[in-house]
């Protein structure tokens, strides 16, 4: 078992006052709260922080922890010295209550583990019924799947209690129907595919958070889809009709004359086919032919002569 340096986790020195510990904890709790933080290890950090604070906020537990000595380094192999907690009086008997099932083995070896499992036993399980927990996972789908709907096999890792009540990591594969019109950030609910219930309680639900794979030419925001439409200068200025791909098939798009670079043309209802369908935007992007041979250079010279054009007129020069 690894030694945990609770002072390092909370980011205070060993002689910090209770007030300093509280302030440091609150600041880090906001930073690493899994609902707020975008850092990938936020959940883990937040758990560790809670555990550290559980010990340091309580002067009795803190004194007992301090007694282990200063020479331990985080991560070092650790076994509590025999009868290490002799001479300490812990109020509240079972030492700790809050969320103790999430705490580390290190914590457990020092301060014990409250409640649930110790009070267990066969008869307990026979009489206790509860709905299983809802579980969450992410699913990466293509934009095509959102336009047309699809069936995708996904594998989900989950923990299950074995017959001795120990958690086991298991993997299972589900064949999921992706509903047409689903958007990024939405959740697909799969009824009764979450954690198993206890006793006769029914299983919880599984929620899949939808993300899209990046696409080489479509960008998605909400239910709207954006597509860059490159145009030759004469196409943009004289107007034309161009062929464009959309996730629902090719279309003909009419480009009005005198279209400026960056202009957005909206194709109503051609975005993601949600209940109220999104729109497709073609963002015009004027592409300039290179002047790398005599013929093209001449064409630019002719343009220069024919047009009295100052692109910096707005700058006053």
């Amino acid at each position, binding site marked *: 078992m690894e030694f945990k340096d609770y002072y390092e986790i909370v980011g205070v020195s060993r002689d910090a006052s209770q007030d300093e510990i509280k302030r440091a904890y*609150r600041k880090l*709790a*906001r930073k690493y*709260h899994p*609902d*707020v933080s975008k850092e990938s290890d936020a959940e883990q950090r*937040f758990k560790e922080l*809670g555990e550290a604070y559980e010990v340091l906020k309580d002067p009795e537990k803190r004194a007992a922890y301090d007694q282990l000595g200063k020479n331990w380094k985080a991560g070092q192999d650790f076994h509590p010295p025999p009868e290490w907690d002799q001479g300490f009086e812990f109020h509240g008997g079972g030492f700790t209550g809050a969320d103790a099932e999430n705490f580390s083995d290190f914590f457990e070896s020092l301060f014990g583990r409250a409640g649930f499992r110790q009070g267990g036993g066969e008869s307990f399980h026979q009489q206790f019924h509860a*709905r299983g927990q*809802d579980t969450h996972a992410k699913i990466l789908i293509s934009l095509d799947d959102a336009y047309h709907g699809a*069936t995708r*096999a996904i594998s989900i890792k989950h923990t299950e209690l074995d017959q001795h009540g120990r958690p086991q990591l298991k993997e299972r*594969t*589900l*064949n*999921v*129907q*992706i*509903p047409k*019109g*689903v958007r*990024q*950030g*939405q*959740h*697909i*609910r*799969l*009824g009764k*595919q979450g954690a198993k219930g206890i006793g006769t309680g029914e299983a919880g*639900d599984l*929620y*899949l958070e939808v993300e899209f794979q*990046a696409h080489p030419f479509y*960008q*998605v*925001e*909400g239910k709207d889809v*954006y597509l*860059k439409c490159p145009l030759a200068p004469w196409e943009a200025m004289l107007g034309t009709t161009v062929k464009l791909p959309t996730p629902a098939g090719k279309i003909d798009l009419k480009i009005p004359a005198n279209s400026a670079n960056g202009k957005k043309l909206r194709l109503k209802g051609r975005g993601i086919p*949600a*209940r109220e369908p999104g729109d497709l935007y073609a*963002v015009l992007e004027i592409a300039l032919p290179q002047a790398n041979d005599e013929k093209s250079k001449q064409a630019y010279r002719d343009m220069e002569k024919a047009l009295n054009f100052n692109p910096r007129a707005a700058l006053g020069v």
Partner: protein
Amino acid sequence: MAKQVLKIIHGEILEEEIMLSLAQLCRRSSMSAESILEMMEYGVVEPYQASQDKWLFKGDSVSRLRCAQRLKRDLGVNTAGAALALDLLQEIDGMRRRLRRLEQQLK
């Protein structure tokens, strides 16, 4: 090795296709009606269609309620603070998505 044929599981989109009554919301969020009513007072969740005696909540109300509950428990904010944090988090999420789209477009 025999290939297992898996049944196709049909899902519903939480944010669009699911509407919940107050009783269903209580069950799914494991919260009492009283605490949901308090969350409603502060706009954490809003009934979608309030006819005379029936409230309907959007499916994502469950995750909003749970998130508000966690923020209250873990950070010591009150219900008004949790509601504010939820709205700001949603706004940030929208801005992140817009930023990502614009960045991709510039490539």
